[in-house]
Structure formats: structure tokens, C-alpha cells
């Protein structure tokens, strides 16, 4: 085969595994979800009857679904705000050279490298109603009542807070790495020029550096939104959606309904509610990436 002929085949050949992967593990399940969502499939059932949009209407009428939808947004928005603030502070701190910077970077990256399920199990013990180290410390410091310590995973608002914080802990390193790259990419001249121009720290930060960081921040946020909106590990391990579905999010509700509750059709319908949100985010992401390329 001629060199040119080989080249013609090389590109598609290199591309093929990725296409197979996407079709088999994303495309097929996605199509299945559509088929299930308009049918009456249950785990173990053999027949299939088309039922139109009835699964969607019944899902929308269920209070558990509305709760989960709301929780999904609360969970995503709160954790992303916290991640954004935390990651910017960490990135700023890590930008400058100091003794032991490599070690601190390593520590900050750890939660990301550790499997999220194992990390979450650790947190489950840290937040446990009986064995919580946090409560042990609070009681010793006389900041909490020994006989009714805070139930981190047992009270609705505390449970939501705990889930958000643990997810933030898990997402922080990735965002920090992205933002650190952004901070180091700002030419040193520009904040220096701003300093000579008379701008103090906060003016430099908010009027010069953060606006310049905006494209990178967008990327970090959009990635974070996708990872958070579709994630159910933290919720599943810490609270199983409880107490009383107060921490249930869409992916976990879909899982509980479709797999554990064996109502595949309704589970598929719930999970399809993620699609419009994710589609918008993906579109924004591609647009941001494109813009970042041309400027």
C-alpha cells in the first residue's frame, strides 16, 4: 500500500475504538432509555407495550420526583459555587513558589485520585451518628451537646449540607488543577502593570485577573456541572437519598426507581430529564472552547 493510502486508513483506524466505545456504552443505552421510557418494561418482564408519554406524566406528578429535581439543582449549584471559590483560593495559593509546594499539591490532589466510593465511605464514618469524629471533637470542645449531637446525615438540611460538602471535597482538586493552569497562563506583566497603575489586591483580582480567567473558569464550571448533575455516588453511599428523600437527586432517584424498584420504564423516564440540562451545558462548553480558541 502506498504511503498516501496508508495515511488515508490510519486516521479512521485510530478513531474506530473511540467510536465503538461511544456507540456501545453511550449510544445504545441512550437509545434503550428512550425506548424504555415510552414503554412498560419492568425488571424481568418479557413483553413490551408502547405507552406513549404516560411514564413522563406520572413521574412529573410524583412529589419524590419534584423533590429530586429541586435537590439536583441545589446540589449542583451549591457545590459548584463552593468548588469555584475554594479552587480559586487554592490555585492562587499554589501559584507562587514556596517550600513544600509539591507536597501540598500532592495532598490537594489526593481526594481526586482516591476512588470516590471509598472516600465517601470514609466520610460516612466521619459523619456517623454514633462514631462521628467531628461530634467527638465538638463535644470535647463543649460546642455540642453530648446527648443530642448534630445528626449530620439524619436531619434533612444537615444531610443536604453534608452531601454537598463531601461532593465539593471530591470535586475540588480537579477544578484546582484547571484553574491553576489558567492562573499560570496569565502573563506576569499584566497584574504587575495593574499594580504599577495603582490597583490594590482586590481590584487586580476582580477587575483584571478574574475577567481574564473567565474562559478557563467557564470550562471548570461546565465540567463540574456535568460531573455533579450526573453523579449519585456520594448521595448513594452517604444517605441513600434519605432522610425521607430529602437528599434524593435525579440520578439516584432513577437508580432507586428503575433498578432497585425494578420499574425500568419510569427510571428511564426520570433519567431522561437530565438530557435537556446536559445538552445545554454541553452546548455552552463547546461554544466556550471554540471562543477560547479564536481569541
Amino acid at each position, binding site marked *: 500500500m502506498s504511503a498516501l493510502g496508508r495515511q488515508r486508513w490510519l486516521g479512521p483506524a485510530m478513531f474506530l475504538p473511540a467510536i465503538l466505545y461511544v456507540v456501545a456504552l453511550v449510544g445504545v443505552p441512550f437509545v434503550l432509555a428512550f425506548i424504555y421510557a415510552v414503554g412498560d418494561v419492568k425488571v424481568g418482564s418479557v413483553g413490551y407495550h408502547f405507552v406513549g408519554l404516560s411514564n413522563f406524566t406520572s413521574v412529573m406528578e410524583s412529589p419524590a420526583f419534584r423533590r429530586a429535581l429541586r435537590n439536583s439543582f441545589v446540589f449542583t449549584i451549591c457545590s459548584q459555587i463552593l468548588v469555584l471559590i475554594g479552587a480559586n483560593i487554592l490555585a492562587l495559593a499554589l501559584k507562587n513558589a514556596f517550600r513544600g509546594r509539591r507536597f501540598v499539591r500532592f495532598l490537594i490532589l489526593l481526594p481526586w485520585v482516591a476512588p470516590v466510593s471509598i472516600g465517601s465511605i470514609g466520610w460516612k464514618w466521619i459523619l456517623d451518628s454514633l462514631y462521628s469524629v467531628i461530634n467527638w471533637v465538638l463535644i470535647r470542645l463543649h460546642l455540642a451537646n453530648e446527648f443530642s449531637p448534630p445528626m449530620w446525615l439524619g436531619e434533612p438540611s444537615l444531610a443536604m449540607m453534608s452531601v454537598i460538602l463531601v461532593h465539593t471535597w471530591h470535586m475540588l482538586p480537579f477544578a484546582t488543577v484547571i484553574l491553576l493552569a489558567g492562573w499560570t497562563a496569565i502573563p506576569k506583566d499584566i497584574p*504587575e*502593570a495593574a*499594580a*504599577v*497603575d*495603582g490597583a490594590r489586591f482586590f481590584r487586580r483580582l476582580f477587575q*483584571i485577573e478574574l475577567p*481574564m480567567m*473567565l474562559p478557563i473558569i467557564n470550562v471548570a464550571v461546565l465540567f463540574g456541572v456535568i460531573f455533579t448533575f450526573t453523579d449519585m455516588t456520594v448521595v448513594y453511599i452517604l444517605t441513600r437519598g434519605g432522610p425521607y428523600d430529602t437528599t434524593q437527586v435525579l440520578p439516584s432517584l432513577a437508580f432507586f426507581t428503575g433498578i432497585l424498584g425494578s420499574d425500568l420504564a419510569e427510571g428511564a423516564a426520570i433519567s431522561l430529564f437530565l438530557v435537556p440540562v446536559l445538552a445545554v451545558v454541553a452546548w455552552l462548553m463547546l461554544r466556550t472552547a471554540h471562543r477560547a480558541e479564536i481569541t
Partner: protein
Amino acid sequence: MAIVQTRGLTKVFKKGDAGAVVNVDLDSREGEFLVLLGPSGSGKTTLLRMIAGLEEPTSGEILIGGRVVNDLTPRERRIAMVFQSYALYPHLSVLGNISFPLKAQGVPAPERQKKVEWAAGLLGIGHLLARKPRELSGGERQRVALARAIVREPALFLLDEPLSNLDAKLRASARTELEQFQKRVATTTIYVTHDQVEAMAMGDRVVVMNKGSVRQIGTPAEVYDDPADTFVAAFLGSPPMNLIEQGDVIVGFRPEHFFPVTHLAGAAAVPEDLLADDRGRGPYVPLRFRISHEEYLGAERILYGELEGGRFDGKKAVSRMSSTHGARFESGSLHAFAVREPDLKFFDREKGTRREPVPLDSSGGPGGPRIPPA
């Protein structure tokens, strides 16, 4: 308006390393255009950054307007700086860029607008105010950077190679503009460059730096005609001064002071005007020069070759002459050249510094008999 002084200013970046700036004593004058000139790594930019307050000195003092400013932030020093990259704020319009220093100082909006208009008018960029920096050409960016610097009427201008990102043609016109602009606003200016042409053309005085220390401070004519040491002699001029080792002395002469006196070889006549010009300017030292090759640069011609005979035998030398000089010089041919005695500079070979002249023909003479002034 203010003058800048430094006292024993030193910057060492890494313990144990040689200093980037070593023991620099500098006194600028009111309204002066002071140029810091040196090769890259000579510490000129570090010196400028210390004056700006962007780099903390390891030791020594910086005074602006008679007041020690070592502990003041850049904001408190009331200086303006133009960076080599211009460091325009990419997300702000030209208007936003120019008004940024005013906003940072809390100048009220109506006054801000007046000042921005004034600065933009002064630099002829009034029509660009709505654009973003990426939509500007290099020359326009440089003007925006200048406008941003002057808009708050600083006590001191610091310019870090502001012309080095422009193409050659634009650089020449920008140079003239910048120089006239500085004369008009009469703000004390410190200008860093590695380009000797810029330094000579613009500077009221030139500070020649090498390896962190100041080698010579003087007017362009002083540093060129009267270099304090072999570094300054070799750094300035293109091609640089001929430096010829001779025992414990280094003899130096500028290529343009090394010219043909063809009649000595019995060839064509010496151009009359050449000799006539020199009446009373001291005797010639004749040297025999074997040409190896010639560079024709349009306005001038540069001859490379070796000296022959006498104590300079085999030493390389360069001659520069106007291309209106019509003589032909074949490669490999031998010609009679000469230098006027007052144009010879003598340096100590060990230290490189200037020393008193030594008689050249005491031990054999360079190339032939002295020619008395006509």
C-alpha cells in the same frame, strides 16, 4: 516631577549566585531621558523593576524625589511603567485600559473622561477607544500603553524596551515620536533598551551596564567617543571598536577612524578633502591592512582584514567608510591605511579600563613612518 537616585542598589535572586544588579549608584536629573543600555542579562530590567517596586532590592536604597521608597508599594511611588509586552488588559477596551489607572486612584468620572480624551488625543488614538487590544496593530498597542502611562501624569516614567516588538521601519518613527513626546511632557524618564541606536538617539544620558554593574554613565557622545573600558568600547558601535592587544595594553580605534591612505602604497591619490579636514588634528599612524572581504551596506562599506608588519602583525581589524568613497578593494590586496593619533584609545589589558597613551613606534613602530599633519 521627580528625580530617581539609587544608593548601592543590589539584587541577588538566589543565595550564592552572582547578583543580577550589583551596587548601582545612579542619579537621574530633572526631566531627563536616561537610558539603561546593556546586553541581555546585564540587569537593566531588574534595576528598572526595583525602581518600579516590582522587585525587592537585596540591599541598597532607592530614592524618588529625595525620599526613600524601598518600602513603598508601586501604587505609592506614583510612577508609570510601559512594559515590553505593553501588558494591555486584554478584556478591556482601549478606553478601559487608559482609564484603569484613574479608576484605581478614585478619580471621579467626569474628570476621568477629560483626562482620557487628553491622553488619547496626545497620542492620536482617539478613534480607537472602543476597540479591544487584540484588534490593534503593534504600533497602536504601543501608543495605548503610553497613553495609559501618561494619563495620570506620573512623577516618573519607566519604559522597558517599548519599541522592541515593533518592526524595523515603525521602530524608527516610533523612536522619534517617543523622544519628542518625552520632551513635550518633560517627565523624568528611565528607558531600558539593548539597542544602542535607540540609546544613542534618544538618551540625554546613557548608562551602560554589564553583568549587573554600571560600566559608564555619560552623554551618547561621551560613551561612544570616550569609552571607559573595553566592554563599553566593544558594546557600542557597529561594527564595534577595533581592540588590538599589545603587551599589557589594548589599543582601540573605531572602524570609521581607520581609513585608507592609498598614496602610501604608491597607488591613487589620497582624497584631498580627507587630508584637508585633518589639518591640526594630530599626526597619522599608518598601518598596512590586507583586505579579506568587504560588506556593502548601501550607505556604508565595511572592510574586514588583517594588519601586516610591525607590532600589530596578524591582528584582525575592521574599517568602515562611506560608500561615497569610490576606491576599490580587492580581496587579498594590501593597502595603506591610517588612524589619527588622537583617535587611538588605550586600555589596561588586565582590568580593561582606560589608561594613559603609550608611544606606538617606540618598539619597532606599527607599519611605517609617521606622517606629519599636512
